[in-house]
């Protein structure tokens, strides 16, 4: 039973560029959430996708966008990269969205470095 998988594992970009990160959820899960984790801090919620639509969004600018496909996989896109976007980007999947009391399961993340 495959867990959450993310690609790539590491990525180096320069300021102003655009990046796409990918996530395949755990088998049986239909909801995908994205988090940003800066060094020394806990993950911060970016947004959540369910039924191919963005359902909730944290305090991130619209440079951060996403997509969910019919097979539940998801992408995180970041435009006009800034130095401060350097972080570990985590994808988490779960079953159901509201009142599910189901834990989110995380992938190992994509380490994005901006030069």
């Amino acid at each position: 039973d495959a867990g959450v998988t993310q690609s790539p594992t590491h990525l180096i970009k320069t300021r102003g560029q655009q990046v796409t990160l990918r996530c395949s959820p755990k088998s049986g899960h239909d909801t995908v959430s994205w988090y940003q984790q800066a060094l020394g801090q806990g993950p911060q919620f970016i947004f959540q996708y369910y039924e191919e639509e963005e359902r909730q969004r944290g305090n991130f600018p619209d440079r951060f966008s996403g997509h969910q496909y019919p097979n539940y996989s998801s992408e995180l896109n970041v435009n006009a990269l800034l130095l401060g976007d350097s972080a570990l980007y985590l994808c988490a999947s779960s079953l159901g969205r509201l009142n599910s009391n189901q834990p989110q399961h995380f992938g190992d993340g994509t380490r994005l470095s901006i030069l």
Partner: protein
Amino acid sequence: GESVGLHLPTLSVQEGDNSIINCAYSNSASDYFIWYKQESGKGPQFIIDIRSNMDKRQGQRVTVLLNKTVKHLSLQIAATQPGDSAVYFCAENDNNAGNMLTFGGGTRLMVKP
């Protein structure tokens, strides 16, 4: 792998001792709580969860205690082992508002052999 939590609070315990990691949460509407373990170079790994209608839940070698009055959560690890060394995060969620986790700042657990 690279380090997670370079400047986090650190709890250092002897192998075989019990560990207690504490967490204060912020949202009184939160009704679901999770503890995660994060090892260097990896994503958070689910340990145990608890709903707000409970004040204690036990798993294998782990116990979570919830005190809603003071908005406090703790994770107890029995007979701590070197493999328990990691950064531990508590996370809270208000299920009526969706499934968006809010994480605490994390605690680094170091187990001395």
